């Protein structure tokens, strides 16, 4: 694991900081030194891994922070029983491309359903909501007038929801120290 990613993951824990959401719906950092036992959002955090296909992304790191969407029931569910998550995509140490912009997509593992989240902001951030059981996060480089149905440009980063790591015991090894790590899913 790259040291900056490691630090990126550990730092919020060390600082006891976490991401909150205030009335207007935007994220606010809430410092709470007592929240050191929390796993929640961090536990469901998705690492974004650079494909190292594009200049300016080699040293980049990123993650998708996942929270339950607001719900009167605490746990947010769709009518068909999927969890409804709000998420924030954040990239660090990434350089803007001279042509085109980074666009975030979510897709089911078979790529049957693709959700257009939107372009990353100038701060390399974007937020959205997801109800897929398992999903891939794809950050692609798209040119102006890109097709919003699915990505067409090269993939710069990708990640996998934690639920996506629940895979068949047949296709992969049974235990977490088996191939998953080699696939880049830490």
């Amino acid at each position, binding site marked *: 694991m790259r040291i900056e990613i490691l630090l990126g993951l550990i730092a919020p824990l060390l600082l006891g900081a976490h991401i909150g*959401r205030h009335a207007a719906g935007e994220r606010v950092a809430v410092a709470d030194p007592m929240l050191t036992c*929390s796993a929640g959002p961090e536990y*469901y955090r998705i690492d974004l891994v650079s494909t190292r296909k594009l200049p300016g992304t080699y040293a980049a790191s990123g993650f998708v922070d996942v929270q339950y969407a607001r719900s009167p029931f605490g746990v947010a569910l769709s009518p068909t*029983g999927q969890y409804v998550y709000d998420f924030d995509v954040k990239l660090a140490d990434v350089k803007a491309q001279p042509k085109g912009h980074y666009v975030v997509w979510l897709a089911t593992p078979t790529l049957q359903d693709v959700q257009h989240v939107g372009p990353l902001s100038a701060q390399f951030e974007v937020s959205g909501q997801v109800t897929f*059981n398992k999903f891939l996060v794809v950050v692609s480089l798209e040119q102006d007038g890109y097709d919003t149905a699915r990505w067409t440009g090269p993939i710069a980063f990708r990640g996998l929801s934690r639920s996506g790591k*629940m895979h068949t015991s047949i296709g992969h090894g049974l235990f977490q120290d088996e191939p998953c790590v080699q696939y880049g899913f830490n």
Partner: protein
Amino acid sequence: MVSFRTSLVCSMALTDTFDSKYLDMPVFLSRRTTRLGFTLIVMALSLAISSPSAVAQNQSEKPDSTRVDHSKMDHSKMDHEKMDHGAMSGSDRVSADSADAVNPSGMDHSAMDHGMMDHSMMGPSSGGELAWRMPPMDMSMPMTPGMMRMLPTTSPFLPGDGVDVSSLPMAMPSQVVRMADGDTLQLEAGLVRRTIAGREYVMYGYNNQYPGPLIRVDKGATVVVDFTNRIDQATTIHWHGLRLDNRFDGVPGVTQAAVQTGQHFTYEVYFPDEGVYWYHPHVREDIQQDLGLYGNMLVDPLSTGYYSPVNREEALILDDILVDGGGIFPYGESQPVNVLMGRFGNVMLANGSDNYRMEVRRDDVVRFYLTNVANTRTFNVTFGGARAKVVASDVSRYEHEVWVQSVPIAPAERYIVEVQFDKPGDIAITNSIQAIDHFRGEFYPHVDTLAMVSVSSTAASPDLTESFSKLREYPAVTEDVERFRKYFDRPPDHRLELTLNHRNLPIETVRMMEIDTLYVPPMEWNDAMPMMNWQSSGNEVTWILRDLDTGSENMDIHWSFRKGEVTKIRIFNDPKSFHPMHHPIHVHGQRYLVLSIDGVPNENLVWKDTAIVPVGSTMDLLVDMTNPGEWMMHCHIAEHLQAGMMLSFSVSDTGVSDHDSQ
């Protein structure tokens, strides 16, 4: 390890293509997988004798075509009644791990005649007494070979041992009992006959009713309940959610001695808050509550306009029960079984019926008072796409109403939901979930019908569409909550961790639990590992509330508060424990606010007494300690509670006059 893996792979192959022809052709399978093939056949038999309707549902609701096709199985030769899975009751765990134990008869399974299968090899004869049999389960869930013949380390139990069933009264649907302040209700827990899905069972009931009588009172009333125990176990009644006099909280050994068979206890039940509540035993809930000992209490507001106008009201109690061809699946006698995930039923019940129907007119607005009394199942309740809004939960209304598309409701929670049925026809109230197949590492959609609503084409009168269309705000709730806002950001007074310990579990279970450690679902919506769950009793598993500040666990924890004190409790559900699972945490005799989940503040507050802590999450509760006495805080999954997951706290009468004195 290699053979373990091999057997999993082969079982998969078998599952993929399970067809009667394979029963005769296991030649390509290894010795070990032959064994597995056999165990799968036993599972098939077991499933065949389980509830036909449940099986049919499983078939139709699974989109995955690679699952076992039950319809292809030839059941004609099977003599289910002859099956004796066992009689290995008692304290010895019997393992089938050695090759000899696997096939002691030297039976050639390649040419099995199922009608003549000798299941006595699975254990000594039961001599006609109650014996464990395989739990009804989803056919597509393969098991590791060694697990198939393990039995729980506690004896099986069913009520009514030696009772002539025909002598028992036939239970009747629940009746509403309107009670005024000072009124007395005679309430008796007894054995009853119940018919569920066309079969007759011996169950328990309050006043021979299912659910028990619905007690309807005005806020502020106190009623007397003269209780008599006529079931074959000691029992008590807990008045869930009520901030009543501690002496009547119904916790054996804490607030009263358990009421023995034939004995009486007089409860004075006080109703300080509006809303929907429920009563149930606080002794072996996994058995007594599951068998029908539960009822609602509806506390009406004193003021008009507290709720919006509706065309009708419906108290709907949701439950499930586990049955197979042999009847109600046995419970653990000295300890609960299914302690890992709790006991999931395979027949869904609404107000005790597997075929609950209600009739409304087009555009009727119905106020549902929903209560989940299941041992462990959390429902995701849908209303066929009809417009629905949530108005209130356990102990109060929300600050403001919210449109909802479904209502996730954990055991012991209540929600008050208003629904307008605007399309004539039959509408199914369903439980719609994404179940998990751990073996395949897949989610799959699953839908169970809980009740049917028949919507006539006659128009509602009065037409309440206009008032229903508005989401109301409840400033009274906000004002009430306002007094507590100054405590919201303070550090927690107590920190709890939710986890478990295990000992002497079958090695296969321990191994299997290491699978898929990369992802643990936030909630368990289905029993994804019925065998392991069943084989895990209270002898092997202890569920734990751990005080992170003192290290104390469960009943070694004893917190002290003063009346009027406001306390913040932070609960962390450890995702790295041996078997992480969500827990609905219940506090007796007080009310609390869920301030935040994972640091995200809750901006539509409601007073609760039970709330779900998902796996991996941290939940902050603010408890309003208004009610003096010795109280419990516990997980409301019946088997978790029975397996230790509870603590006690006291609230002294020397009150805090003002919250500022904290």
